[in-house]
């Protein structure tokens, strides 16, 4: 009997594929599944990627979590240096999103109509405006819901395609929202008007469930592809090197 596909493994492979073709840039996936997926991309098919230790260095290790004394340091990258990298255009970040809309505008700052008196205060703008104007950006949403995939975000932190289209071509030259990966599927903006399109749904996920969990109309292709499973080689890398403790399964449980 064949082992059932585990949802977290599909998410990790989908994250890894976001970095395909990126070459020698800083892949900066933030979060558990993103970090594991980014490490998988480098180990499996994108060896030139540089990646952070989450602190002040870029490291060559394949494992997602590396004790400080085992880090193989490639270069020094304290917080201030990160802006040199980001503003040079040599980075692809994967951020989270408290809200995201059909144009790819992202909010992590606050909920409610008045940002000076937020109904719910969140993290703040962080680096989202700078990340999205200077570099390719993707998003990771561990729990796909209509509270996250909204018709309009309350605060535009990360810049979406409608906002970028209002800028001059030189200002928007580096803007690209490549993918949104959720626990249900993979989404991109490769539609005629750069609005969010289903790229693939994870094995076992039904289209109606995704439509119901999304607060706007997605662009749905005639034939909706199924997200790929990791190859046996990729699964071996995950189990033996990148995430031997299986932390990915704790972030995304298998569907009931």
């Amino acid at each position: 009997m064949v082992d059932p596909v585990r949802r977290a493994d599909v998410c990790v492979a989908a994250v890894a594929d976001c970095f395909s073709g990126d070459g020698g840039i800083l892949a900066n996936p933030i979060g558990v599944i993103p970090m594991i997926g980014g490490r998988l991309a480098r180990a499996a098919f994108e060896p030139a990627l540089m990646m952070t230790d989450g602190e002040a260095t870029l490291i060559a290790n394949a494992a997602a979590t590396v004790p400080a004394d085992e880090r193989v340091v490639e270069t020094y990258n304290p917080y201030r240096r990160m802006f040199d990298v980001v503003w040079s255009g040599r980075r692809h970040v994967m951020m989270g999103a408290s809200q995201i809309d059909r144009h790819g505008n992202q909010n992590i700052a606050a909920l409610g109509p008045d940002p000076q008196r937020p109904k719910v205060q969140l993290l703040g703008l962080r680096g989202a405006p700078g990340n999205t104007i200077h570099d390719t950006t993707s998003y990771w949403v561990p729990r796909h819901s209509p509270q996250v995939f909204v018709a309009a975000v309350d605060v535009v932190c990360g810049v979406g395609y409608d906002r970028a289209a209002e800028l001059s071509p030189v200002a928007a030259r580096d803007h690209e929202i490549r993918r949104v990966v959720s626990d249900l599927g993979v989404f991109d903006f490769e539609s005629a008007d750069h609005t969010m399109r289903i790229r693939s749904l994870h094995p076992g996920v039904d289209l109606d469930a995704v439509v119901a969990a999304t607060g706007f109309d997605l662009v749905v292709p005639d034939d909706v592809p199924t997200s790929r499973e990791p190859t046996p080689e990729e699964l071996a890398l995950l189990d033996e090197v990148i995430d031997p403790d299986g932390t990915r399964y704790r972030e995304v449980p298998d569907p009931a």
Partner: protein
Amino acid sequence: MTVGIGGWGSRRKPMTLIRALLRTDVTDLHVVSYGGPEVGILAAAGRLRHLTFAFVSPDVPNPITGGSVPGLDPHFRSARQAGAFSATELDEGMMLLGLQAAAWRVPFLPTRVGLGSDVTRLDPNLRTVRSPYPGPDGGEGEELIAQPAIALDAALVHLDVGDERGNAAFTGADPYFDDLMLEAAAEGYVSVERIVPTEDLVDAAGDVTRLRVGRLFTTGIVEAPGGAAPTECPPAYGRDDDWQSAWFKTTKDPEARDAMLEEWIRG
């Protein structure tokens, strides 16, 4: 009074200096910070009038990996939602540019950071500027955000080692923006884990590249062992998660909050 606070999140915050500040009657503060627990503390103590920030997120343990993640500070959150202070909200990099402009004594620095986002809605005083140079196609110069200088009346930072004259060094992995905070400030106050004679400073720091703070930019220095606690000060000590988590739990109980704050201020 505008005060810049060094460190980042729950990392190497000048907590002994914050505590000293809370022992005075200084109030009505405008705080500029890559915010950690000191923001919620100052807000809870009723000392905060205005906050310039890109985030306030103390690091907290990550239940999945055992590492740490940026958490939400419930004291900051509840004070902000109650409208207890006003705020200038910007991108992390805009804050860097604002401090750099103040340090270099220019009125603003141009950047693409913020274009297309809501920063101009969040801060109606924020302006753009058109480049006086032609664009790459020979046409009109591009429009950029003009990040204004963020001039500080005072900066408070905590470093690892210094001398009595006001030179100081970091021995952890990251200098954060502490030197820039001092350079952007009219007066710079530094606490250090230990003070050594100037002739021993390079050895105590490890090497010369760690002497990031020079006395050109410091007004006062004080020896304060444990001066970043409960935030981390690697390699000397880590974050006090027990204290931080107990503090966060007092958000909905003003009496417990004030008692804990009082105890912490007394030391």
